[in-house]
C-alpha cells in the first residue's frame, strides 16, 4: 500500500495535462490570432511531455500494477493523432469572419473550451489507468466522459450535433447510474472501496452474492463506455451527429477508459475462480453473452449502413466485442508454463487498443478530410459511402489511406489489425473458449463485407458522372493524421514487437496466489493508514 504522496508521484502525466489545460483555456480567448492558434501546439506539447513522463514511472500500483506506463503512453500517442485530426473542428466560421475583418468575440468562440475539454478527457482517461479505488475509478470515468458530451455538442454548428450531445449525455448518465449502483453493491458486499483489498478478499474465497451482483452491474454499466450490447444504442446517432474528428475521438477515448475499467474490475476476482478455472460463472456468462451479442449485432447492423460514420460506429461496437474475448480469456498462467504474449488475453486487449486506435483513426480522418456542397449550399461532410466513389482518381493519397486502414480493420494479413486480432484468437483458444473464437472468426468474415464496400468505392469504382465534386478540408493537420495512421498500420507490421512486449508487461495482474494469510492481514491493516494519509 502506498501513501498519497507516492500516488501523486505516479501522476505527473496527468498533472502535465492539467497544466496544459489551464494554459489552453486562457490562450483560446486571446484576441490575437497567433495566440489562439497556439492552443493546439500547447495541447500537443503537453501530450508529448505527458507521454514521456509516463514512460519514466514504473511504480507498481493497484490490481494491474504495471498498466500505467503502457496505457498512458498509448493515450498520449493516439491523443496526439487525435489532436491533429481535431484541427479546425470548432470556430471555423468565426475565424473566417475575423479574417474578413470582423472583431474577435470571445463569447461566441469555443476554441478554448474545446481544447481544454479534449485535454480534460484525456486526463481522466489516464487517471482511469491508475485507479486503485472505486471512488477514484468513478471520478476518472466521469472526467473522461463529461467533456465528451460537450465536445459532441459544440463540434458542429448544426442542430444534429446538439441532438447527438443530448442523447449521449442522458444515456451516459444512465450508464453511470448503473455502474455507480454496481460500485455501491460492491462496497456493500466487501466493505471496502479499495480494489486491491477487494482482490485480496476475493482471493480468500469471500465472494458473496451482493459483491458478485455489484461486479456484474458495474461491468454492464461501464460497457456503455465501450459501446457493448446492451448499452450500445447511442453509438450510431452520436457518431453521425458529431463532426468526424470528434467521432474518431469517441471511438477511442471512452472505449479505452471502459476497457481499462473493466480490466481493473474483473482483475479483482481473477481468472481462476470458475469450475474449470477462468472467471466466476455468473460474470463469465455475462461477458460471454455480451461479447457474442456485441460483435454479431455490431457487424450485422454495420452491413446495413450507407453512411460511413454510422458504419464505423457499428463496426466500433463489433471491435469492442472482439476485445471482450480477450477480457474473458484473461492473462493465463504466469511463469514457466506461460505462453507469453500470445496466451495473454489482457495483453491482447491492450495491444488491440493500440492497433484499433491507429487504424480506426485513419478511416475517420479520411472522412474528416473530405467535404462536399450540401443541398442548401453549405459545406457538409462527405460521409456517404457513395461519396467516396472514385476517390483514387481525385484524392489518391486519401484513397490509399482508406484502403490500408479498412483492410487493417477487417483483419486482413499482413496488416496491423491482423496481428491485433491473432492474439485474441490464440488467447481465446488457450482459455478453452473455442466456440467464442469461431464466432470471432465468422464475425471477421461478416466485417469483410462492409469494409470491402469502402475499399471498393474508393479504389475500384469510377466517380459517379453527376456527383458533387469532393473538396479537401483546408486543414493540413487532418491529412497528416490520416497519412500518419496509415503509415503506422504499415510500419508497425514490422516494428510491433516492442509494443507487444510492453503490452504483455502492462497486462500483469497482481498475484494473490502466493500471499500467505499473515500477508493478507498486513495488507488489510495497511489500508486505513493509506487512506488517513
Amino acid at each position: 500500500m502506498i501513501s498519497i504522496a507516492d500516488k501523486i508521484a505516479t501522476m505527473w502525466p496527468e498533472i502535465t495535462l492539467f497544466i496544459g489545460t489551464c494554459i489552453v483555456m486562457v490562450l483560446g480567448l486571446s484576441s490575437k490570432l497567433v495566440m489562439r492558434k497556439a492552443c493546439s501546439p500547447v495541447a500537443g506539447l503537453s501530450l508529448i511531455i505527458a507521454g514521456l513522463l509516463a514512460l519514466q514511472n514504473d511504480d507498481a500500483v493497484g490490481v494491474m500494477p504495471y498498466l500505467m506506463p503502457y496505457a498512458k503512453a498509448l493515450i498520449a500517442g493516439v491523443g496526439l493523432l487525435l489532436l491533429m485530426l481535431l484541427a479546425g473542428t470548432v470556430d471555423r466560421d468565426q475565424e473566417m469572419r475575423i479574417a474578413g475583418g470582423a472583431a474577435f468575440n470571445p463569447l461566441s468562440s469555443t476554441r478554448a473550451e474545446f481544447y481544454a475539454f479534449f485535454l480534460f478527457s484525456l486526463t481522466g482517461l489516464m487517471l482511469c489507468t491508475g485507479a486503485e479505488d472505486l471512488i477514484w475509478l468513478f471520478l476518472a470515468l466521469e472526467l473522461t466522459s463529461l467533456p465528451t458530451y460537450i465536445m459532441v455538442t459544440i463540434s458542429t454548428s448544426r442542430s444534429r450535433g446538439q441532438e447527438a450531445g443530448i442523447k449521449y449525455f442522458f444515456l451516459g448518465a444512465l450508464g453511470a447510474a448503473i455502474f455507480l449502483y454496481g460500485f455501491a453493491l460492491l462496497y456493500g458486499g466487501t466493505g471496502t472501496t479499495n480494489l486491491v483489498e477487494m482482490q485480496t478478499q476475493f482471493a480468500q474465497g469471500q465472494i458473496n452474492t451482493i459483491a458478485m451482483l455489484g461486479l456484474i452491474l458495474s461491468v454492464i454499466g461501464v460497457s456503455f463506455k465501450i459501446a457493448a450490447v446492451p448499452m450500445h444504442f447511442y453509438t450510431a446517432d452520436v457518431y453521425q451527429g458529431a463532426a468526424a474528428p470528434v467521432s474518431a475521438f469517441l471511438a477511442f477515448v471512452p472505449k479505452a477508459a471502459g476497457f481499462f475499467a473493466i480490466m481493473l474490475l474483473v482483475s479483482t476476482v481473477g481468472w481462476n475462480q470458475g469450475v474449470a478455472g477462468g472467471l466466476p460463472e455468473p460474470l463469465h456468462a455475462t461477458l460471454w453473452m455480451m461479447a457474442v451479442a456485441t460483435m454479431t449485432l455490431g457487424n450485422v447492423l454495420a452491413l446495413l449502413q450507407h453512411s460511413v460514420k454510422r458504419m464505423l460506429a457499428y463496426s466500433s461496437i463489433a471491435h469492442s466485442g472482439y476485445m471482450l474475448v480477450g477480457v474473458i480469456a484473461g492473462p493465463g498462467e504466469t511463469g514457466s508454463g506461460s505462453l507469453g504474449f500470445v496466451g495473454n488475453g489482457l495483453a491482447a486487449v491492450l495491444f488491440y487498443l493500440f492497433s484499433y486506435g491507429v487504424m480506426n483513426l485513419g478511416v475517420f480522418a479520411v472522412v474528416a478530410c473530405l467535404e462536399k456542397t450540401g443541398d442548401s449550399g453549405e459545406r457538409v461532410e462527405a460521409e456517404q459511402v457513395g461519396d467516396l466513389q472514385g476517390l483514387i482518381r481525385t484524392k489518391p493519397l486519401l484513397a490509399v489511406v482508406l484502403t490500408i486502414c479498412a483492410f487493417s480493420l477487417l483483419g486482413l494479413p499482413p496488416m496491423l489489425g491482423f496481428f491485433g486480432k491473432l492474439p485474441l484468437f490464440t488467447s481465446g483458444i488457450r482459455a478453452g473458449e473455442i466456440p467464442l473464437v469461431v464466432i470471432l472468426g465468422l464475425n471477421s468474415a461478416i466485417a469483410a463485407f462492409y469494409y470491402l464496400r469502402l475499399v471498393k468505392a474508393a479504389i475500384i469504382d469510377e466517380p459517379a458522372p453527376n456527383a458533387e465534386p469532393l473538396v479537401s478540408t483546408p486543414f493540413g493537420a487532418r491529412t497528416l493524421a490520416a497519412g500518419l495512421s496509415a503509415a503506422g498500420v504499415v510500419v508497425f507490421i514490422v516494428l510491433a514487437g516492442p509494443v507487444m512486449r510492453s503490452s504483455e508487461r502492462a497486462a500483469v495482474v497482481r498475484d494473490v496466489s502466493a500471499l500467505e494469510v499473515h500477508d493478507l492481514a498486513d495488507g488489510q491493516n495497511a489500508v486505513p493508514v493509506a487512506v488517513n494519509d
Partner: protein
Amino acid sequence: MILLGLILVPIVFALCVWALPESRAKVVAVIGSLVPLAMGVIAVVQFNWDMPEQFWLGKTITWLEPMGLELSVGVDSVSLFLILLTLLLGPICVLCSFTAIEHRLKTYYGWLLVLQGAMVGVFAARDLVFFYTCFEFTLVPMYVLINIYGSTNRKKAATKFFLYTFTGSVIALAGLVYVVWFSAKETGLWSLDIGVLATTARGMPLGQQTLVMTALLLGFAVKVPLFPFHTWLPLAHTEAPTAGSVILAGVLLKLGTYGIYRFVLGFTPLAVVEHAGVIAVLAIVGILYAGLICWVQTDVKKLVAYSSVSHLGFCVLGLVALNAAGINGAVLYMINHGLSTGALFLLIGMVYERYHTRSMKELGGLASKMPIWATFMVFFVMASVGLPGLNGFVSEFLTILGTFQASNAWSGLPGSTPGVLGPWFAAFAGVGMIIAAMYLLIMVGKVVFGPLVEPANHDDAHSKLPVDLNAREIGILLPLAGACLWLGVYPAPVLRTLEAPVQVTVDRFQMILAQKQADEGESVRVSVVPASAPEEEGETP
C-alpha cells in the same frame, strides 16, 4: 535468400509500376515477371536434387518476436515445382494482357505483380502465420483484377469470390491456431514452424484431429473448390479478365490442394484416414456433377471453368487415396492442370478479343479462319481430356490407379494398398473422365470444326489484331505446349523428384492404415458377441 527474393522482387516492381507513368507500366511489368523467372532457374540449380524431400534454400528472419513469428522460407520438390509453375505463368499473364487491357494499366500490372509475389510466398513459407498471410493476401489483388477488368457481372463475381474464400480461410485459421496452441501445450514452446507443428499435431487424439481437419478443410475446400463449396468459381472464372482466369485456374486453385496436401494430410493423418471416404465421395460428386454441368454450357469460358471443378476433384481424390500412385498423381495433376487449363483460358481470351463473344452458338468452324489457333486449341483440349502422350493422361491415370488400389477389401489384388477407396470409387471417377472427353470434344467440334459461324455484326477491320494469332500470342502458348508435351512423353524425371517427399507422407499413412486394419481385425473378433446381443433384444418386442 533467393526464395525471399522471389517474393519481394515482384512486389518491388509493382511499386515501380505505380510510381512510374502509365506508359511504362507494360515494360516494367514484363521485366518484373521475367526477373523472377530467371531467379527461379537459379533456384532450380541451387536446389539439392539428391534429397528433394528435405527443405532447401531456407532462410529465416525474425519478424515479430513476441508472437514467435518468423519470415521463414524453404522448399521441397513439391513446393519448388509449384513455384516454377507460378513463375512460368507470370510473364504469360503479363504478355496476354497487352491488347486486352486498355484502361488503368498501372493498377492492373501492379496488382498482377503483387499477386505473383504473394503466390510464391504461399508455396515457399515455412512459418504458419507467414503462410496464412500470403494465402489471404492473394485475395486482394485478385479482387481488384476481377472487379475492375472483368466482364459485365464482375462486381458480383469479385465480391462473392472474396467473401467466400475469406470466410473459409478464417475458419481454417481457427484450426491452424488450435494446432499451434496444442503444440505449445505439448512441447512448452510457442512455435509457428510448419515442420515442428506437423510433428506435434500428428500426436493429437482422433477427436481433436477431426475438429482441426474439418476447420482446415472448410478453408481449403473453398479454394480448391470441392463440391459443394464450388459455387463462387464459375462466376469468378467467367467474369475475370483472361490473365485473372489463368492465374485462378493455374495457381490459386492449387493453393487449396497444396493446403490439403501440406496441412490436412500433414497435420491430421488419423482424421484423414477416418474420413477419407467422405472426402472422396465429395470429390467424385464434384467430378460427375461439374462434368454434367459442363455438358450443357454454351459459354466456352464457363465450360472450362466448370471443368476445373471436375478436374480438381481428381486431384483431391488422388490425395485421399493415401498411397504412392494417388498422391504422386495428385501433385503432378496440380502442375498439369495449371498448364493445360491455363492455356485453354488463354485461347478463349484470344478469341474473345477478336469476336467479343464466348458463346458456342455464335462461334463455329474457326479452324478454317484461324488455323494456328485451332491447332493449339485441339492440342490443349487433348491435354486436358487426358490423351495418352500428353500431360493430362499421366496424372489422371495415376490418380485413378491410386484410387483403385486403395482398398482393404480387395487386398488380394496385386499392387493393392490399405485404404478406404477402391475399384468402385475408381469406376465412378472413370465415368468422370468419359464425361470430360465428351463435353470437351463437343465443344471443340462446335467451335473449331464444322461450318464457319461468326457473330452477326462481326467485322474484322475493327480489331487491331490479325485474323489468326500474332507472334506474341504464339510465343505465349509455345512454352505451355512444350511443357505439356514434355510432361506427357517423359514425365519420369519430374515424377522421380516428386516421389521422395510424397513417399514420406505415404509411408506415414500406410503405417496408420495397416495399424488400423490390424486393430479392426481384432475388434471385429472381440465384438461379435456383444454386438449381436442387443440386436436380438430389439427384435423381440
